[in-house]
């Protein structure tokens, strides 16, 4: 390379940042650099998801390692002038600690990045995913070269087995073992498949890997194909992931042109062809047997196992299906060995795991952490704690609709397959939805059950009918028609559905209900018996009241009320007219003095009756707890 660049500007072009306008930021920077004739010295790279989606659009500046967030096109002239011409990084555009409001310039000091160890995401934000050269420059395809020319299939399988890596799609089955089963089957035709049908609400780990580092997935598949003896592969991706599909296709084309896919790869004599298959977005198609039926062009429905796909998979041929994140881990394992992989994580859960952190935390985004890290570190340090003044952590939903919630009392558990399962949740593919004291757990369970009831493929009646009945009961509870015995019925139905469903969808669908009952039974009871949703979410089960002693008469709630249900004079306590109130929560969210309380539906007391509540609120124990 003759032209050297002194600065690399890594502009995040993951889906999150693109929708926040990162491409406009890129154009603005280009214009500004041209104006100052800096375009040759300063390189701009569009990367995949950087991870800190909450701050989008974000850019990272190397070598200074400076991280800018929430950029607007109008910030750019000043930024270029100050930082790239004069060398003065612009404080006001940097990441700030939520509590301290102090700018932290260097990426390695930002807690969000500091606690992460990147393996599956090793190239995130560091390479241009659309350029195969940049992937190769970071040791790309060297693992494939090693596996294809220096190792036998048996040796590849041994390294992967010894590394202890477990399937990152959710079930946690040992990847090496899966490969071994398939390798042992004699067959002229086998298939290597990649599961990119990420369907959990709030999960975007796989999408981010496919967008940020598509070659890592392809290389993992080449190595896996060699290990099991497959010459054909498919990547099954949801059609709702257009950017991932585009980048994967570009990567497949580039790899094919470079002879890294196709015939006689790297002169090893091994052939492997790869195609993308677009899924239509049915949740059940993430289940392996349903996914294979879908590729065959049939209706995506699971079938009983055995026979397992290792014996009879796609088109009844031996097949291996691995998750995107699992495959992205394969190359470093081959290059650095099983021991290296095991130096992070625990005995039974080695390595790292990628999580999509969403919900009530400050730093929503994509994180990769060593297994065994306390849940608390993920939420408080990486996630930056709970967003919003006065709000408190309540629970975290792990594993999406198949998982369960973990309450505050268990927040110190290490995040491993074994420990998470003990709580009733599952590791799942890595969705992590954080909830605060303004979330209703009945509502949460209902939300996930709505999803699974809708997505049930209908093959097994317990799942098809059972989830619907459970959903009806939950709807009744949240709308004030709950009755004695409902909780027990939910529990019974849950156990039946788990025991009698064919695939993972039905076997896990009741988990959100079971775990919320296990940890928040009192909330269900207060919904049913007291007609009181203490979080103030279920509209039929709450009423909002202003406590005179705490109200400063600022008028903020009055101005925001859409149904004009609040009356009062300036600097005098206000009052909510219950008949007019639509329970939209806007006053509750607006009040700066914590003077609005959530009480049972139809509560018709005088303010004087609330004095006790008020006193409790002053001492820090609100009625809403």
């Amino acid at each position, binding site marked *: 390379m003759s032209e050297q660049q002194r600065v690399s500007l890594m502009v995040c072009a993951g889906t999150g940042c693109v929708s926040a306008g990162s491409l406009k930021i890129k154009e603005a920077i280009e214009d500004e650099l041209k104006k100052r004739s800096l375009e040759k010295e300063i390189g701009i790279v569009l990367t995949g998801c950087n991870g800190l989606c909450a701050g989008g659009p974000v850019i990272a500046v190397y*070598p200074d390692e400076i991280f800018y967030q929430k950029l607007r096109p109008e910030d750019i002239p000043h930024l270029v002038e100050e930082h790239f011409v004069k060398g003065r990084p612009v404080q006001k555009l940097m990441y700030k600690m939520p509590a301290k409001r102090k700018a932290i310039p260097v990426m390695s000091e930002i807690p969000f990045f500091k606690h992460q160890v990147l393996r599956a995401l090793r190239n995130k934000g560091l390479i241009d995913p659309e350029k195969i050269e940049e992937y190769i420059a970071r040791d790309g395809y060297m693992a494939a070269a090693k596996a294809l020319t220096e190792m036998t299939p048996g040796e590849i399988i041994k390294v992967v087995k010894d590394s202890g890596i477990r399937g990152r799609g959710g079930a946690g089955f040992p990847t090496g073992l899966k490969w071994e089963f398939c390798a042992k089957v004699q067959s002229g035709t086998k298939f290597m498949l990649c599961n990119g049908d990420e369907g959990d609400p709030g999960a975007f780990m796989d999408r981010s890997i496919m967008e940020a580092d598509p070659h890592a997935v392809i290389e993992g598949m080449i190595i896996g194909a060699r290990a099991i003896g497959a010459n054909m592969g498919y990547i099954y991706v949801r059609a709702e992931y257009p950017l991932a599909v585009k980048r994967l296709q570009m990567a497949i084309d580039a790899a094919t042109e470079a002879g890294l896919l196709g015939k006689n790869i790297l002169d090893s004599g091994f052939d492997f062809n790869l195609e993308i298959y677009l899924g239509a977005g049915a949740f059940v198609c993430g289940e392996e047997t349903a996914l294979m039926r879908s590729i065959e062009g049939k209706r995506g429905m699971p079938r009983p196992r055995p026979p397992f796909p290792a014996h009879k998979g796609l088109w009844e041929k031996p097949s291996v299906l691995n998750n995107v994140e699992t495959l992205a881990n394969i190359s470093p394992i081959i290059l650095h060995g099983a021991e290296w992989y095991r130096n992070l994580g625990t005995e039974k859960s080695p390595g790292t795991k990628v999580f999509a952190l969403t919900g009530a935390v400050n730093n929503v985004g994509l994180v990769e952490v060593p297994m065994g890290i306390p849940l608390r570190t993920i939420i408080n340090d990486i996630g930056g704690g709970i967003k919003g003044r006065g709000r408190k952590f309540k629970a975290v939903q792990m594993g999406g609709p198949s998982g369960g919630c973990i309450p505050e009392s268990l927040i110190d558990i290490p995040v491993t397959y074994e420990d998470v399962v003990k709580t009733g949740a599952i590791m799942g593919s890595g969705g992590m939805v954080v909830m605060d004291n303004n979330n209703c757990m009945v509502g949460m369970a209902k939300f996930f059950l709505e999803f699974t009831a809708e997505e049930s493929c209908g093959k097994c009646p317990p799942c098809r009918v059972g989830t619907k009945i459970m959903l009806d009961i939950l709807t009744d509870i949240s709308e004030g028609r709950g009755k004695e015995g409902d909780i027990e019925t939910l529990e019974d139905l849950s156990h039946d559905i788990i025991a009698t469903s064919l695939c993972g969808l039905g076997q896990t669908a009741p988990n959100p209900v079971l775990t919320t009952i296990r940890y928040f039974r009192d909330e269900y009871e207060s919904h049913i018996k007291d007609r009181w949703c203490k979080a103030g979410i279920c509209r039929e089960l709450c009423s909002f009241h202003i406590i005179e002693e705490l109200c400063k008469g600022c008028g903020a709630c009055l101005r925001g009320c859409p149904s004009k249900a609040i009356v009062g004079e300036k600097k005098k306590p206000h009052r909510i007219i219950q008949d007019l109130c639509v329970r939209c929560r806007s006053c509750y969210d607006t009040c700066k003095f914590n003077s609005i309380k959530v009480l049972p539906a139809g509560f018709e007391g005088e303010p004087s009756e609330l004095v006790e509540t008020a006193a409790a609120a002053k001492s820090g124990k609100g009625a809403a707890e």
Partner: protein
Amino acid sequence: MPRLTIDDLKKIKEQHKATFAVREGGYRAKVTVHMGTCGIAAGARTIMTALMDEMAKADVKDVIVTTSGCAGLCSREPMATVEIAGGPPVKYVELNEKKIKEIFDEHILKGNVVEKYAMVVGSETTY
């Protein structure tokens, strides 16, 4: 792109070394051109351009160039600070194109401090 061999993979990696030294760290030397208002007025831009040209000519892959603000000695601009990994920073003052080229050859490439242009070795005390 033609079909690649394993040697080609290694070559591509080598070719991109400079780019990734910038992004990943792990560089051998760092040059800071002081580009505050005073530095720019005194001609820091020419120094930067000359330095980038020299880097390209010599095809070095382990040196990074950055900018920083005023170093506090406006009367002696243009200035640049050269740090070889593990060594103390050296501040050069009153630079011109010829001087920075000499510093590049002697100090950055060969590791010998060019004493005649150097003002000070080490950095100021900070807390």
